[in-house]
């Protein structure tokens, strides 16, 4: 196992060295004699709406001898269970396995189970990504284990019908200016919410959990310090943000919705809440929820719009990666496929198919990105690509530790719901700290 990997590494190094002279035929040289001319079947596992399914046929056409067997899992959570189980079992992982940012921290703990993509040509292409995305996919020994697919820069979704009812402006540039434009803060966001709530008696945002995720993702250091130490107990920044969120709840700004359910989507169509936290990949979710509830998914009357503003400044929520596990028998071909799928042209195609925003700079500036899609029509013809590009500016990578997703979902998740249900902020915070001790400190 070790030996063959070394020879492959050697072959890859030789391949890179000779690349200047022999620009073509590199990928077939790197695989060694075993698969020269043979048909190679590559497996790939993705999840959610990554927009890749239409690209496989093109890759097979351009690379004779490669057959792609694809599998798409419905949600990131199920994909995590799938991947974890197969890592634990030591077999069954696909040649190319997609990983979500939220559980990348756990994957980094066992990064030796994934090949160092630098051995398979990562060094040539590593400049294509926004730097922080590349940094997230690099382990503590400097090995590149993951190629970035999409990122989740956040803008603000708002319902223009609800805004009009409260006498607020509905034009997206005016809405952005109203919240303070580039200087928008959570205070100005909640203050406008109170104004809206007084005017209409309705809630401002859907539930506290997504607000809290956004607030934490925005900090330089979240649940972990940059050095990888736990950073929750006695963290004044977290507590201050929590207090703000609790005050907003006390003012009646939360609609206390169940996240990922939203009353089967109906709350997106009946004006239950007026604003919504929208990373790029969430736009398709909003459209899908309106469709589920039987609303107008083409957008003419749904009233949803997308503003180039976010409280507290630029932030990223979510985004995914492609990895090649050491279990793969064809690491070179798998790495080539992962590299191709994350290249600029393909990321543009993926964005157009299902809306994940590119992590590759050349794709972000590609004029083709701005072409109208079904998603932009739904959001009142908002220039989604343009807005997301601006929202991606200034995003920094936050270190995500191994227990990051557990802290988000099981420590603060229940307490955020408590806030929605009217529990006092201090009590909910203390409950979260108790859970933190139970689940994380004394695990």
């Amino acid at each position, binding site marked *: 196992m070790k030996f063959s990997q070394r020879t492959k590494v050697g072959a890859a190094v030789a391949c890179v060295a000779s690349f200047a002279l022999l620009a073509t035929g590199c990928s077939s040289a790197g695989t060694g004699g075993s698969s020269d001319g043979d048909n190679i079947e590559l497996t790939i596992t993705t999840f959610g709406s990554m927009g890749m399914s239409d690209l496989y046929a093109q890759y097979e056409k351009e690379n004779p001898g490669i057959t792609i067997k694809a599998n798409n899992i419905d949600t990131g959570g199920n994909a995590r269970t799938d991947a974890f189980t197969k890592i*634990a079992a030591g077999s069954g992982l696909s040649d190319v396995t997609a990983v979500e940012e939220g559980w990348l921290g*756990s994957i980094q703990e066992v990064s030796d189970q994934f090949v160092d993509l630098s051995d398979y040509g990562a060094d040539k292409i590593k400049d294509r990504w926004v730097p922080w995305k590349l940094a997230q996919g690099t382990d503590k020994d400097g090995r590149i284990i993951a190629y970035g697919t999409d990122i989740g820069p956040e803008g603000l979704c708002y319902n223009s019908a609800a805004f009009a009812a409260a006498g607020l402006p509905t034009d997206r540039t005016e809405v952005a200016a109203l919240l303070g434009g580039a200087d928008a803060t959570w205070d100005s966001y909640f203050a406008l919410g109170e104004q809206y709530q007084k005017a209409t008696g309705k809630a401002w945002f859907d539930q506290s959990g997504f607000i809290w995720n956004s607030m934490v993702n925005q900090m330089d250091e979240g649940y972990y310090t940059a050095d990888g130490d736990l950073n929750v107990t006695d963290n004044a920044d977290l507590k201050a943000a929590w207090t703000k969120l609790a005050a907003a709840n006390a003012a009646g700004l939360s609609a206390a919705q169940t996240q990922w359910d939203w009353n089967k989507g109906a709350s997106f169509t009946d004006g239950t809440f007026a604003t919504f936290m929208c990373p790029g990949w969430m736009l398709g979710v909003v459209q899908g929820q309106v469709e589920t509830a039987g609303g107008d998914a083409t957008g003419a009357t749904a009233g949803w719009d997308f503003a180039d503003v976010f409280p507290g400044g630029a932030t990223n929520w979510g985004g995914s990666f492609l990895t090649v596990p050491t279990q793969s028998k064809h690491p070179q071909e798998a790495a080539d496929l992962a590299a191709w799928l994350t290249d600029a042209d393909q990321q543009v195609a993926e964005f157009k198919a299902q809306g994940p925003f590119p992590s590759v700079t050349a794709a972000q500036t590609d004029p083709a990105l701005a072409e109208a899609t079904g998603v932009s029509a739904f959001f009142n013809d908002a220039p989604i690509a343009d807005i997301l590009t601006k929202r991606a500016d200034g995003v920094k990578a936050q270190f995500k530790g191994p227990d990051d997703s557990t802290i988000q979902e*099981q420590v603060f*998740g*229940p307490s955020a*719901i408590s806030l929605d249900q009217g529990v006092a902020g201090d009590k909910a915070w203390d409950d979260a700290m108790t859970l933190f001790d139970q689940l994380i400190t004394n695990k």
Partner: protein
Amino acid sequence: MTRTLEPDTSAPAPVKRPGRASALTYKHRLSRMDVKLSPYLYISPFFVLFGLVGLFPLVYTFVVSLNNWNLLSGPGEWVGFDNYSAELADPLFWNSLFNTMSIFLLSSIPQLVVATAIAAILDQNLRAKTFWRMSVLIPYVVTPVAVALIFSSMFSEQSGLVNHLLSFVGVDPIGWKTDVLPSHLAIAGMVNWRWTGYNALILLAAMQSVPRDIHESAALDGAGFVRRFFSITLPSIRPTMIFVIITATIGGLQIFTEPRLYDATSSTAGGAHRQFQTTVLYLWEMAFQRQNFGKASAVAFILFIIIVAFGLLNFLISQRIATTDSRSESKRAKRQLSRTLRNGAKEPRA
């Protein structure tokens, strides 16, 4: 027999004996082996399979539970029974155990009562018997996943059917997914919906094996339906009842699918505040979300011991009931029957 053999043993024939005797004993041995071993050989596939898929995982789980074992990075150091003591001191573990017991009691008791009642009704002379009997089994055919999705939608708090119907009689919306008792009731409802008909059919089969003439003679003696049900039917189906109770206990303590899918969007399996997180759900989350395989194995083993304890308890109680009641009762019934028969036979003669 012994006498005819005696001279043979005392017979002085040392030359002939070994060859003859060994040929005989060889055949003897073979046939004896055949008689003695073959039955075990025939049933061995079960035990080999059980050893592979039952016993080995059991032992392996126990070994894992003694280690600090991470899901992804694998075995860590040996910690002895630390995982057990940590779990027994963990309020979240006890919460899961409470939820399991609560859902178990809320489902098993009404389920058995209703199943027995349905079986008693089906045992009567109904028209279109097969139709009714098949209909009660229909819920069992539907997969638990579909049942959970339907119930989850029906008990949706904001726009669910149940809260909507309750609003007609002026009842405020109930927190079917946020409050402890309502959520337990809803999940127990799912279990009951699925298993009541199945248990009713098993009990019906037992009821049908009760001799009709006992019923008839009791009816002739003036015993009404209720009296016959409690005095004849129930005592006679006791062994089957015990079987149903034990299987319901084992199933009830291992409940997973229903609470898992009842609120599938929740980031914590079994409700945001673990309102209906059962023990199996807790150990699943411990293994695959919190990635602590050692502790999850410890929980699995504790659960195993609890189920065995419940099974033994059931067995002992039922054993006592069976010996004190049904045996003496059946004896009494037999004695009575033979007495009446004898008397009946005598009477014409006299």
